[in-house]
């Protein structure tokens, strides 16, 4: 039976290829959809991860960077700097905004960093200055290219003109691009005086970041302090949870499509081989064995399709990065496990579809002309 299963499956390579490609595209749709959320989730924590501070300090009651607001009175910079084990404190102002570049509006998180200190600035540059000066902005290279702008051109942030001083890399995604200006410029633009949003704290060598965060919370009034890992995990969690429901829905839809396609393929195999099945039945092969063979066929198609879909998404990640840099794709282990499990479940369900057909095959028909 085992041999028959695979001989039949590979008897028409063209049809097998078309079958696997169709089912794979259903899995690929799910992986792509999930990949978009994974890519965005990775980008959402890029600033936290890449600036690599040991501890982040923010307003009490706030535990995230995105989708929230944090403000700290600037006297807390010195207060945090005075805590034992703190080597350096770098303040930033941070807000979400829409800026105008090349006649189009772009959503961006704007980071106000101290003039001349690149500590909280972009981590990879395409060209230009690494830290903005007064009246200057560093924008993502992707936006500059899309808007047809370059160094020396103007962008407008919250009604103020800024001159592009540098183009950064790894700072753009659909919903999480980052623009850098000086802290003073941003404070003036958003009319805040004497406040910052977050403090990046570098610890003295040998100091445990978790203990330092606890010490800062205990010693400085009304602040929250988190290690980089905690802070990053919380923001990542926000992004993932925002897309969780829709990712599950797409997984179900993609899974249902795969069930129907695999079911159709197995059903077609049965329909085309009724005479062979009748011979088998006449020779004493039980229905149970035939079902097992169909299940194996469905599993083979499902797993081949899954493998093709995974290959496609891994191929797409660098390809999309080059061809459509506005889209950030990511692949997570959780997504791969979920899709792999879906492939197995899909095959099991699809194998049920031709059951009636198998039951209806009469062994006598093997001897009829």
């Amino acid at each position, binding site marked *: 039976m085992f041999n028959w299963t695979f001989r039949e499956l590979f008897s028409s390579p063209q049809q097998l290829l078309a079958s696997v490609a*169709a089912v794979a595209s259903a899995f690929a749709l799910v992986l792509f959809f999930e990949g978009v959320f994974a890519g965005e989730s990775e980008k959402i924590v890029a600033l936290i991860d890449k600036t690599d501070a040991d501890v982040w300090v923010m307003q009490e009651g706030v535990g995230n960077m995105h989708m929230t607001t944090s403000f700290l009175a600037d006297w807390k910079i010195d207060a945090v700097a005075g805590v034992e084990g703190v080597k350096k404190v770098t303040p930033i102002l941070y807000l979400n905004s*829409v800026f*105008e570049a090349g006649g*189009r509006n772009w959503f961006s998180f704007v980071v106000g960093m101290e003039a001349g200190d690149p500590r909280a600035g972009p981590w990879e540059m395409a060209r230009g200055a690494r830290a903005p000066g007064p009246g200057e902005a560093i924008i993502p290279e992707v936006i500059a290219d899309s808007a047809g702008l370059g160094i020396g051109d103007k962008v407008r942030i919250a009604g103020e003109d800024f001159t592009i001083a540098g183009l950064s890399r790894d700072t753009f995604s659909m919903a999480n691009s980052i623009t850098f200006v000086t802290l003073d410029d941003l404070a003036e633009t958003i*009319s805040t005086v004497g406040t910052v949003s977050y403090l990046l704290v570098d610890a003295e060598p040998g100091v445990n970041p978790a203990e330092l965060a606890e010490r800062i919370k205990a010693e400085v009034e009304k602040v929250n302090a988190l290690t980089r890992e905690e802070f990053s995990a919380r923001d990542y969690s926000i992004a993932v949870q925002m897309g969780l429901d*829709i990712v599950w829905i797409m997984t179900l839809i993609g899974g249902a499509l795969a069930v129907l396609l695999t079911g159709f393929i197995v059903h077609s195999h049965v329909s085309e081989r009724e005479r062979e099945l009748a011979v088998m039945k006449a020779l004493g092969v039980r229905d149970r064995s035939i079902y097992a063979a169909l299940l194996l066929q469905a599993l083979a198609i499902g797993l081949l399709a899954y493998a093709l879909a995974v290959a496609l998404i891994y191929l797409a990640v660098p390809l999309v990065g080059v061809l459509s840099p506005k889209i950030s794709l990511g692949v997570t282990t959780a997504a791969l496990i979920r899709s792999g499990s879906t492939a197995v479940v899909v095959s099991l369900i699809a194998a049920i579809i031709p059951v009636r057909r198998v039951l209806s095959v009469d062994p006598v028909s093997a001897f009829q002309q």
Partner: protein
Amino acid sequence: MLKLAIKNGFYRPARTFLTVLAVAAILAEILMLEGFMSGTYTQLRKSVLERGGDVIVAQTGISNFIAARSVLPQQVRAEVEAQPGVAEAHPLTSLMLIYEAGGRLSPILVVVYDDAGGPAAVTEGRAPQGTGEITIDRALARRYGLAIGDKLTLSAYDFTITGITEGAAAIFTPFAFVTFDGLIDFYFESDVGADIAAFPLLSFLLVDVTPGADPAEVAATIDANIPDADTFLPETLATNDENLGRELFGPILSLLLGLSYAIGALAIGLFSFAAVRSRKKTLGVLRALGFTTRHLMAGVVIEALFTALLAIPLGVAMASGLATLIENISPVYLIETGNPVGLWRTGAIAVLLAILGGLAPLGTMRRLDPATAFRG
């Protein structure tokens, strides 16, 4: 050939049913994606239009409602109300906060209003009226199992839920509503109190014009006389937000729709291919009777078209049912599957895919030997 194609369709009803169901599911998936994006844009528009006002005033240089921080100096309200044609200017602000419960984190856009700009559809309970009261959207209530009278803790400050709204959400984020009195208490009593100076107290003004006044003219007057403010007709601001949504989601929608079309073409191609393989003998007879490849291919394409035409209404019904289900399970999403433009486009694409998919077995058909008809 038409008669033969239709006859073939009914010859194996189980296979035809599976084929129609699969194509319908693909069309439903395409309609859902289109509906998801259309719903996202509608939510963005509604976020502005449901606030009301004939003219909306924002900080100079700010041209969006949902994604930008607008801060207006307090005196702007009095200045706006002094302009000709202005009946009243209602203050509005908003702030993003994170609600955390049971290990889950959800961002909420808290809309703060005075006597205009509040919730458009309170389906249970009532709108907030004073300190410590909040009205939340059904999307948040459903996600966390919250009900009227429950506590909602934000920045260590306990609000009491007084009402549940419907359809107040945008970009996967549910809205909540509090009054300015509630905001002041929140600022002073919550953890944010120490740094209150930095928080926005006035972001937008919703301007009612006097009877007979032209909103566009009033907006132009405010623009000309008040340098700290930019004005928009609500429709313009809504369009700005919608355009921003298109900028954010457009590229990914194109990618996913492209992939969905590829699935459709592959699936219909697979069905046509399988149909030809299973009827090789019949087709051999037709070839022996003198039918050309063109005739036979026309039959296969007609059969694929027939499948697509049956699948279109089923796909629309499936998409509509699924959208309703999803909106009930997770009301933060709005999936507009009934958009006529989307329906027509998907229908046209289904026909195109059927033609393309129907041509898939062209090679097999060309190689078809009339002798097949006479083999055992």
